């Protein structure tokens, strides 16, 4: 019953999206003005219906209703409740439903609160949102219905992939989806602005909070995903340039560029066509990412829910959405009048540089991700990994970081370098000092050396804009910028330290054996069997002492799940202020020579000492926090502006009555 209810809600939502598109489009014609009143309510109700359908699916998973195919295939009655809930979006159909739900709710949010733009622009925006949503509704209803029944219902479900049974993963996909799909709002705004030719500061200000919101979630999602890969895969790496990771990085790069260009447009009325273009590109990258991940045309270490048939559908959607948006852009870009001018030495120019570099990195990542597909079409199988992505993206990232040290201090429109002598000399001096220091340490690869050299200078430069200012009076948005830029420095330091100073030790140890890695001495105390709700495991007990100090206990496991039957390693980590000890236990060593005199076997242990590696994720968190501060600051400003406007209008009305 619940399943049918959810499906009905979904169909109704799709119908409302069609109405929203039709009414929005007709309302823009000379005779359709009366339909305008329909558009906003349709958007709101559509969002609510989607949320209802999604709630229904969550309910089915919570109840483990095995007569629903999706539940039977992806859940199991013995799973802990949190993973039953996470199972809702841990599969293709459920995650697509989450996608349209976020899209619907975002559209509803815009329809409810956004009243600053001229109404025709808003109608075009909401119609654009409905247009994009409709494609995804069609996808969901015709090719991946989450509410399909199974008759007869199986006695037990298949269970959820053990790698996905992790608290981090329960919240990771929804976070990323909020980011991906939030960018659809930027896309719709860009379309609305192009149709009504309303590209200006007001458009940028209206779009900015939505982009910021989506960007915050994307940042958090990428950071969390990276940490998840780091400790769940047990490979010690935190970024693999895997298609799935690239799929989340590309929209982030585009959204980061969009945020910066939108701030130029909002403050200075320049970069009009460019900002609109980025709005289109950002969401297009979300869709490209989804296509790559869902279609399974690229191999990935964390590709779940893969089905090539669906790829075709998403590819068609992609072609329609991006194609029509680019066609519209081509038609209208010429009529978007040129914005304000600025000199080479100005904040605008620095931001243009940032945008071009981010776009170049985006291009590098996109080409590298798609290259295997191209060569495969020509009959050659290749894979592209860190040896390509790291140096080639650094070619553009390093100049961008250098400009980042100065850019925030420049004035709008025109500035003189003489004014910033000290602000340029301080980071340059720091770069020189750290370069010499780390060269002296020696044995550091070129890439980590560049990172280590830039990070301290960047950290200092990022707080320089606060110099000579009364901290209490600094706007929240500026604080956001400072915190986010500082976060970039922190993350960069973490990445560089990880690749420069990590130590690794791989051994097969008998209980009682000790091993050293970096400053740590680690003893395998014992190996014993343990059991969980849906798994059994062999658990190693490691006593690790840092530089002869009191030992801490780590318990890595080699875990066997029985629904579905699968084996994974569960790493154990110990975090200190100066780094992280990372331990993984593998299988018992097979073969006769491995059995000890007392009959105990040897166990494979992989130990890493990773100095300062947590800085990577602290940095990611700081970047997101910076976004949040900026968002709060912007929204507060907007609210204040609206209040002031209302007051002014009220006074004017009063005066109008008195005089004139």
């Amino acid at each position, binding site marked *: 019953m619940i399943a049918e209810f959810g499906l009905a809600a979904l169909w109704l939502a799709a119908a409302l999206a069609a109405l929203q598109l039709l009414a929005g489009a007709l309302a823009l014609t000379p005779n359709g003005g009366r339909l305008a009143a329909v558009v906003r309510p349709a958007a709101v109700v559509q969002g609510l219906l989607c949320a209802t359908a999604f709630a229904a699916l969550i309910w089915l998973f919570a109840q483990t209703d095995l007569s629903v195919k999706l539940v039977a295939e992806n859940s199991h009655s013995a799973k802990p409740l949190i993973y039953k809930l996470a199972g809702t979006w841990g599969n293709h159909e459920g995650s697509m439903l989450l996608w349209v739900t976020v899209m619907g709710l975002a559209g509803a949010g815009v329809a409810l609160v956004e009243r600053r733009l001229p109404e025709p622009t808003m109608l075009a925006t909401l119609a654009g949102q409905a247009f994009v949503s409709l494609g995804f509704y069609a996808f969901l209803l015709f090719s991946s219905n989450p509410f399909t029944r199974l008759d007869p219902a199986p006695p037990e479900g298949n269970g959820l*992939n053990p*790698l996905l049974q992790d608290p981090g993963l329960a919240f990771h996909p929804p976070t990323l989806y909020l980011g991906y799909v939030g960018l659809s709002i930027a896309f719709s705004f860009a379309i609305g602005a192009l149709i009504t030719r309303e590209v200006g500061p007001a458009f940028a200000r209206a779009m900015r909070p939505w982009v910021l919101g989506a960007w915050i979630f994307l940042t958090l999602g990428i950071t969390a995903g990276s940490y998840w890969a780091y400790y769940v895969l*047990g490979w010690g790496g935190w970024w693999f340039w895997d298609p799935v990771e690239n799929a989340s990085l590309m929209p982030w790069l585009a959204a980061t560029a969009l945020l910066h260009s939108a701030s130029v447009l909002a403050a200075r009325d320049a970069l009009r066509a*460019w900002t609109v273009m980025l709005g289109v590109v950002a969401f297009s990258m979300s869709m490209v990412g989804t296509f790559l991940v869902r279609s*399974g045309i*690229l*191999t990935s*270490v964390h590709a*779940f*829910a*893969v089905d090539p048939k669906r790829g075709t559908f998403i590819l068609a959607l992609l072609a329609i959405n991006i194609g029509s948006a680019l066609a519209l852009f081509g038609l209208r870009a010429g009529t978007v009048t*040129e*914005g304000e*001018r*600025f*000199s080479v*030495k100005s904040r605008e120019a620095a931001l*243009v540089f940032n945008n*071009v*570099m981010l*776009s*170049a*990195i985006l*291009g*590098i990542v996109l*080409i*590298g991700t798609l*290259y*295997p597909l191209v060569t495969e079409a020509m009959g*050659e*199988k*290749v*894979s*592209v*990994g860190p*040896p*390509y992505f790291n*140096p*080639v993206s650094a*070619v*553009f990232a390093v100049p961008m970081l250098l400009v980042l040290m100065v850019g925030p201090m420049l004035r709008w429109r025109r500035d*003189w370098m003489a004014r910033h002598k000290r602000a340029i000399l301080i980071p340059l001096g720091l770069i020189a000092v750290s370069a010499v220091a780390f060269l002296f340490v020696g044995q550091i690869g070129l890439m980590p050396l560049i990172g280590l050299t830039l990070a301290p200078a960047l950290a200092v430069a990022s707080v320089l804009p606060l110099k000579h200012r009364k901290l209490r009076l600094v706007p929240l948005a500026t604080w956001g910028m400072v915190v986010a830029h500082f976060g970039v420095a922190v993350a960069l330091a973490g990445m560089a330290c990880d690749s420069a100073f990590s130590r690794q030790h*791989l*051994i*097969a140890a008998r209980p009682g054996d000790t091993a050293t890695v970096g400053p740590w001495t680690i003893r395998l105390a014992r190996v014993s069997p343990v059991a969980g709700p849906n798994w059994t495991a062999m658990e190693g007990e490691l006593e690790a002492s840092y530089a002869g100090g009191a030992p801490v206990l780590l318990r890595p496991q080699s875990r066997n799940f029985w629904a*579905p039957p*699968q*084996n*994974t*390693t569960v790493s154990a980590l110990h975090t200190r202020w100066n780094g992280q000890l990372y331990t*993984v236990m*593998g*299988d018992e*060593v*097979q*073969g006769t*020579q*491995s059995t000890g005199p007392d009959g105990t076997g040897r166990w*494979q242990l*992989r130990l890493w000492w990773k100095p300062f590696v947590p800085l990577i994720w602290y940095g990611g968190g700081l970047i997101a926090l910076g976004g949040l501060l900026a968002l709060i600051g912007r929204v507060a400003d907007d609210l204040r502006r609206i209040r002031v406007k209302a007051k002014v209008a009220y006074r004017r009305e009063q005066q109008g009555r008195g005089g004139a």
Partner: protein
Amino acid sequence: MTPAAPPLKAKHQRLVLLAIAMVALIGAAILAVWALRSQASYFYVPSDLVANPPETGRAVRLGGMVEKGSMKTAADGVTVDFIVGDGKARVPVRFSGIRPELFVEGSGVVAEGHLEPGGTFIADNLLAKHDEKYVPRELKDMSDAQARKTVAETK
């Protein structure tokens, strides 16, 4: 530019910006394609690897079946030697580390690594079938018949 210099005309500024963006993006694309030619890691099956070996040290991937009875754990307990074959050729592979769970004799594997001068393939990473939903794509493409034949030959 001195402060007194007149800023560019609007139209010129747009063209200059467009030109800069195009140059940077085209530059990025050219750099990407050039780097990909030298950095992409190619996929080999054992017969290709033997017939037409890549330069030693270059990152490549090797996919095939782990021969039955070929897996030997070294005395250190963490290094494993085995032979990957495709029915036509056999390549000795050495790997140090924790092996993926579904990496067993007679099953498919993709090894990432490089060829040593002696003809041994040093694997940095092994991708095995990781669960029923994730199979390295190259293995999926090996037809079932081919795989059965390979397994039969290497028994």
